[in-house]
């Protein structure tokens, strides 16, 4: 610890990531989660800063983890990121086992219509947005909020991708296709150009107001009152058009990471702010492809060799734990952990843990595989 500024200490600690832990949320985490919900940038529809809703959310997660589940249903798993060094909950993220299990999960699907004129011998393409419920079947990674001090650190990656480590272990609880919905573009004043050009005509309320309403009530209630016929893109404002499929600036790095992970841009965007929805086949995601089981070998922290960072998860359900450690193996394939790390994960020597590299290939390679 070189600095004395507490925020730089935190960042340093995050970089080391020695004491970071992702685990399922518990009732006692409500205060922290509410704080995270209020500080999310931008505010998230699916993480309303509304205590009753959040309590319900945690209870739902605990219920799902205490039952046998043979196929994805209306479970929502909520996780928290804990920094043990400062003893604080500094992030949260969820998985909806089936995006449309409770309410239909509506998105706008970008389509191209061909208007061909035989008379004039020309073909004219027109883009539309159609209300769609096709994404209802996917398992959705959503509701992520991270303490601002940890942004851009490996803590962000851990929080985002520990969910994949969980999915890797409980495939029967999730769909083959995963989705990630990113907050959409807002301008400097915090307004959504897409909402202002589309939804506002039908609701006459601002983006933040409707977003809040949707968080407390249900987004699908609102979708069902949205225009039922496809919208012609040329009739939207240029500002709205350019917001389609564009993420909120604060989420650019996260989006890049998910593309590197193997997700691709789908044709679908959020119905309020036109934020992008990524989709990924589980079988093609880097973390799920490259993770492996290794027995634990405990060694003094000082004697651990240097190696690339990795996510390490224990083999529990309700007591699921995932942290960051070095991917250092013995010649016989045992993962070397310090005493502290083993304790963090709640594992003893010889117990198998799931390990996947934290690093991902360059984003550029993954960018152009989408449906579009």
């Amino acid at each position, binding site marked *: 610890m070189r600095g004395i500024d507490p925020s730089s200490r935190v960042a340093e600690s995050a970089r080391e990531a020695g004491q970071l832990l992702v685990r399922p949320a518990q009732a006692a985490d409500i205060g922290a989660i509410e704080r995270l919900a209020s500080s999310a940038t931008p505010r998230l529809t699916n993480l309303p800063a509304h205590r009753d809703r959040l309590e319900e959310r945690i209870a739902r997660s605990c219920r799902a983890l205490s039952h046998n589940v043979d196929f994805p249903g209306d479970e929502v798993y909520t996780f928290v990121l804990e920094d043990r060094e400062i003893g604080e909950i500094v992030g949260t993220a969820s998985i909806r086992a089936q995006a449309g299990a409770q309410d239909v999960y509506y998105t706008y699907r970008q389509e191209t*219509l061909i*208007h*061909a*004129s*035989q*008379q*004039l011998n*020309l073909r*004219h393409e*027109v883009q*539309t947005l159609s209300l769609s419920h096709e994404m209802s079947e996917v398992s959705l990674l959503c509701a992520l909020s991270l303490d601002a001090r940890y942004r851009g650190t490996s803590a962000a990656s851990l929080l985002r991708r520990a969910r994949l480590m969980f999915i890797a272990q409980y495939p029967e609880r999730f769909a083959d296709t995963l989705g990630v919905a990113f907050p959409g573009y807002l301008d400097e004043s915090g307004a959504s150009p897409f909402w202002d*050009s*589309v939804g506002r*005509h*039908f*609701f006459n309320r601002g983006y933040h107001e409707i977003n809040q*309403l949707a968080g407390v*009530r*249900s987004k699908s*209630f*609102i979708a*069902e*009152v*949205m*225009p*039922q*016929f*496809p*919208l*012609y893109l*040329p*009739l*939207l404002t240029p500002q709205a058009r350019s917001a389609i499929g564009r993420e909120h600036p604060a989420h650019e790095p996260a989006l890049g990471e998910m593309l590197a992970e193997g997700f691709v841009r789908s044709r679908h965007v959020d119905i309020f702010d036109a934020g992008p929805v990524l989709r990924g086949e589980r079988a093609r995601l880097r973390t799920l492809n490259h993770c492996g089981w290794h027995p634990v070998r405990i060694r003094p922290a000082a004697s651990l060799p240097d190696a690339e960072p990795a996510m390490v998860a224990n083999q529990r359900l309700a007591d699921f734990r995932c942290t960051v450690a070095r991917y250092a193996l013995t010649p016989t394939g045992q993962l070397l952990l310090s005493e502290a790390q083993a304790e963090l994960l709640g594992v003893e020597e010889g117990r198998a843990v799931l390990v996947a590299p934290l690093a991902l290939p360059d984003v550029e390679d993954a960018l152009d595989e989408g449906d579009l």
Partner: protein
Amino acid sequence: MRLRPISHHDIDELKSLAQETGVGFTSLPNDHDFLVAKIDKAVAAFEGHVPACERLYFFVLEDEQSGELAGCCAIEAEVGRETPFYHYRVGKLAHSSVQLDLHRTIDTLFLSSDHTGDAEVASLFLRPAYRRDRNGTLLSKARWLFMAEFRDGFPDKVLAEMRGVIDADGISPFWQCLGSHFFPMEFKQADQLTGLGQKSFIGELMPKYPIYTPFLPEAARACIGQVHEQTRPALEMLKKEGLRWEGYIDIFDGGPTVEAYIDDVGAIRHSQRVQVEVSGDALAQAERPSWLAATTGMADFRCSFIGRGPDADGVVHLSEAEARRLNVTSGDTLRLLQT
């Protein structure tokens, strides 16, 4: 001045009329072959040779002194039978949710061909030099007398399409905001193709799904159902006859289509048939003629103003000149309308 069916020897005069009409009057393009075909078609219609759905009654207003044509107008007996006939219809869709305590209706433009089979009054043009002496009224109302006389040859409804709003630069804001996104061409070109009856490109390129009007810019919304400044008098005249805007607009410029049940049209309801008596004597002559008289034959249909209405016995007295103009003699029947 008298109105009569067009005939083959009117071709040169029709061409000079067509030259004068200009943009926005697409049904009379300055194209020899097209105009010849138009006359052929009209002549066949007046001779009663063609089925109703192909009948185009094309009339000319003739200055019987100079032999010059002063203007023209037409009735199409049943539109949309040979080529598709498109409109946008302004409709309402309800968007309501008990849970959200929301209930509103959204205006929507639906592509429709609802008017297929209706009659249309169209192509009215009067040369500037003749825009006096109620010639416009004659051109416009003569059609009602024709329809009243040959009521059986027409369907239930009649419509008239009104030119929409064009801005100072000659551009239709409605087209700019809507049509231009779907038709990769200029407004003029689209308009011309339509005038030539080549309308299948409309159905091919037009958006098939309804357009939610709130998505249109204010400039376009303001054109919906609004007429061009110069068309306002014509619209007023039709409104007085009972034609109304029922929500149909032109797909290019957003101008209103007004319509009525033919039997409800004022001029048709109020016209009456009377006996003619040609009187050599000096007859009372109104300074501003208010009685319109039309003959009862189709191929030799004539319509003009006369100086007076029927007497108490239901007989109308005509001067020799009036009788000549209408080509009637004593004992013939005329259909009269006080305008």
